[in-house]
């Protein structure tokens, strides 16, 4: 082996492997290259095919200049041997004048071009080498692109039966590396190709989606296109591409399945709601008429007991129908909470009366205590509140054979407009084993105790939890088997005096004066508003820490990673809007996130449309364009007391 350098080796130089046993021919190449101004180059020389293969296994070469008449090989066999071991190698063939037919054949075997000895000069040599390098680079880039797009290509020559598959076709259809190297299509692919070649040869274009089984790797989906063309020598060639579209196909299939599932769920829910509703009317008739019979004088003794049994059974059945109706409304997201004024004590007294018979029938003690600090006149959904308490107290009575059932209501938080109350429902019943406490609020969970399953749908507590959480409340329990159970419910209400004409009215006594040292998360996509919000807050409270999110999704991520005292939430944003983000905040498993105050930032024009902001989980709103004094006052009003020092 000899190395001849035209100039000192630099990074950009072209490494050439000249496979030529004739020293005169080899020297001629060097002279031409020197005279052509080909650029920086270096030549290594090999005098046989075997020597060339050894060289190629040790070093990369931009070009192999291959003589077709060598001591250990002659004609196109030389290129076949090189290509068999180095299929991507750029090769330009040198042929004698009488062997130009070999040159053409070598190109068909994968050579980039051929030069006829005695028929080329320095310019044509340089031009051929440059073009071959460019072509090789282009092919590499094309292959890379095909790899990224998961596209493979092939050619079929019907005259000779020759099938040329790109590496990518083999990689996509035969992912096992050892199989790829044999260069042959899999049985599945071969079968497919035979089928589509028949179609293409009849002159029709093939354009189809199909799936191919891949051994050990399931099946994959491909888009296949091919058509009949003619090569430059007028030979018929079928050219085709196949693209792996499995991911797209699966996504589409999943979307279809999801849509179908959603549609089925909707239909099922509509059906359940409709049937349940239709059942409720006759059930009410049965119950009402049973009561009429029971209060009439003519019914006595065994008959009375039987009618009593009909009424009790109807009562249970109606409870189940109501549970199913509520559950399907919640599942369909159709439940609405009212914001009406009510007297808390009056609602509790009614509840007491309804439950009195059940309590006395079981010989239980009843206790109810509402803390004096709890305001009586509240705004909220009194029916849903009653339902929550009725479910929990009903359960308490059901599972208590002796002792006491009690309801306590305490104030845990209060500002000028809102109160937060804890409802404590205590019993001295059978208790709930620790392992069952985790799943007690799940749908269709029915309590089993001492191998006895208690009546009901198993939906009562699931509905109760949903009713609490949809009102941004919290429910949990403490229980000991054989001692009893206490359920806790935290719920927020607006104090009636803070409401006027369905709007929250700003409290004139609210002040914007006070120091704030907490963290505010501003969720706003508008750059100028972001800057203004930051500067305005920082001017007012230099110690404030501000987090900025461009949309709801980022806000949720930030809330999980940082302790945030208050969120200022824009409503219309890309990716995830303020409504969706706030809804997710209110359903978050972490209490510190679920309970964070969220102030909607809304334009004047939309305030009237956003009176339902409370129902959507917002604590309150601030107007846009910003009114700094109102903004500061709202933050001080709702941010937790611990971070404010006046």
């Amino acid at each position, binding site marked *: 082996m000899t190395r001849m350098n035209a100039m000192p080796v630099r990074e950009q130089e072209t490494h050439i492997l000249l496979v030529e046993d004739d020293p005169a021919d080899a020297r001629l190449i060097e002279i031409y290259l020197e005279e052509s101004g080909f650029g920086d180059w270096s030549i290594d020389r090999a005098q046989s095919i075997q020597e060339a293969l050894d060289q190629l296994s040790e070093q990369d070469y931009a070009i192999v200049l291959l003589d077709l008449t060598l001591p250990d090989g002659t004609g196109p066999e030389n290129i076949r041997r090189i290509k068999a071991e180095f299929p991507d190698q750029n090769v330009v063939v040198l042929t004698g004048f009488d062997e130009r037919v070999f040159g053409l054949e070598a190109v068909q075997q994968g050579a980039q071009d051929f030069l006829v000895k005695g028929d080329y000069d320095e310019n044509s040599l340089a031009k051929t080498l440059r073009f071959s390098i460019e072509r090789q680079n282009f092919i590499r880039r094309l292959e890379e692109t095909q790899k990224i797009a998961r596209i493979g290509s092939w050619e079929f020559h019907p005259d000779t039966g020759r099938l040329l598959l790109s590496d990518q076709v083999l990689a996509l259809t035969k992912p096992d590396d050892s199989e790829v190297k044999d260069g042959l299509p899999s049985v599945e692919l071969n079968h497919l190709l035979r089928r589509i070649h028949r179609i293409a040869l009849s002159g029709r274009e093939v354009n189809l989606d199909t799936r191919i089984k891949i051994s050990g790797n399931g099946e994959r989906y491909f888009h296949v296109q091919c058509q009949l063309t003619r090569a430059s020598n007028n030979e018929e060639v079928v050219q085709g591409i196949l693209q792996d579209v499995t991911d797209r196909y699966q996504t589409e299939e999943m979307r279809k399945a999801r849509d179908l599932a959603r549609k089925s769920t909707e239909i099922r829910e509509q059906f359940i709601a409709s049937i349940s509703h239709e059942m409720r009317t006759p059930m009410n008739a049965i119950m009402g008429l049973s009561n009429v019979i029971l209060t009439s004088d003519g019914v006595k003794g065994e008959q009375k007991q039987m009618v009593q049994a009909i009424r009790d059974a109807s009562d249970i059945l109606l409870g189940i129908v109501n549970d199913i109706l509520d559950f399907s409304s919640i599942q369909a997201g159709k439940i609405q909470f009212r914001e009406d004024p009510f007297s808390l004590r009056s609602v509790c007294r009614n509840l007491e009366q309804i439950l009195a018979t059940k309590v006395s029938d079981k010989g239980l003690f009843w206790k109810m205590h509402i803390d004096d600090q709890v305001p009586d006149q509240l705004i909220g959904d009194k029916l849903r509140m009653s339902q929550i308490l009725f479910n929990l107290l009903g359960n308490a009575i059901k599972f208590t054979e002796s002792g006491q059932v009690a309801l306590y209501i305490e104030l845990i938080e209060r500002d000028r407009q809102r109160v937060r109350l804890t409802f404590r429902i205590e019993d001295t019943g059978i208790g709930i084993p620790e392992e069952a406490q985790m799943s007690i609020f799940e749908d269709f969970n029915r309590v089993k105790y001492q191998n006895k399953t208690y009546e009901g749908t198993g939906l009562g507590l699931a509905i109760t939890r949903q009713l609490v959480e949809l009102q941004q409340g919290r429910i949990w329990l403490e229980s000991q088997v054989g001692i009893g159970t206490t359920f806790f419910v935290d719920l927020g209400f607006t104090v009636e005096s803070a409401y006027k004409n369905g709007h929250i009215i700003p409290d004139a006594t609210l002040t914007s004066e006070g120091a704030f040292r907490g963290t505010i998360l501003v969720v706003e*996509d*508008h*750059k*100028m*508003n972001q*800057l*203004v919000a930051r*500067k*305005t807050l920082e*001017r007012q409270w230099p110690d404030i820490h501000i987090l900025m999110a461009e949309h709801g999704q980022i806000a949720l991520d930030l809330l999980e990673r940082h302790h945030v005292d208050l969120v200022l939430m824009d409503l*219309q944003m*890309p990716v995830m809007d303020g409504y969706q983000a706030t809804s997710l905040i209110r359903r978050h498993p972490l209490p510190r996130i679920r309970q964070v105050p969220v102030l909607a930032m809304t*334009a004047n*024009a939309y305030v009237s449309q956003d009176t339902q902001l409370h129902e959507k989980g917002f604590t309150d709103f601030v107007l*846009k*364009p*910003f009114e*700094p004094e109102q903004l500061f006052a709202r933050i001080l009003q709702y941010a937790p007391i611990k971070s404010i020092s006046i």
Partner: protein
Amino acid sequence: MKSEEAEINLEYLDTMSGGDVDMRNTLLDMLIEELPRELSILLEAVQMGDVEAIFQASHSMKSTLTYTGHTESIVLNEQIEAASRQGIWGTNERASFNNLQIKIHRLMGALIKLPR
């Protein structure tokens, strides 16, 4: 033709700057950068006939226009926003948009001339 310069009202921008000259200039620079960008997004949405995108673009532009205090542009944009919010995009809205384009074009000329 009225001078757009005279129609600009930077009271809100000044309030929000809180007397900070750098902040004021930053907001003015942002206005000059954001307005054409948002207008081109709105234009694209209009050309595509995508009413939801029109609403998003005009909603975003509303905040930006607030800083100019340029009542006519604000009102035109509000008309576009209110209609597209309800899924409406008809002749009146197209006329409002054409008008808004002209207004913003002139407004930009006036904003650039403002002293710093």
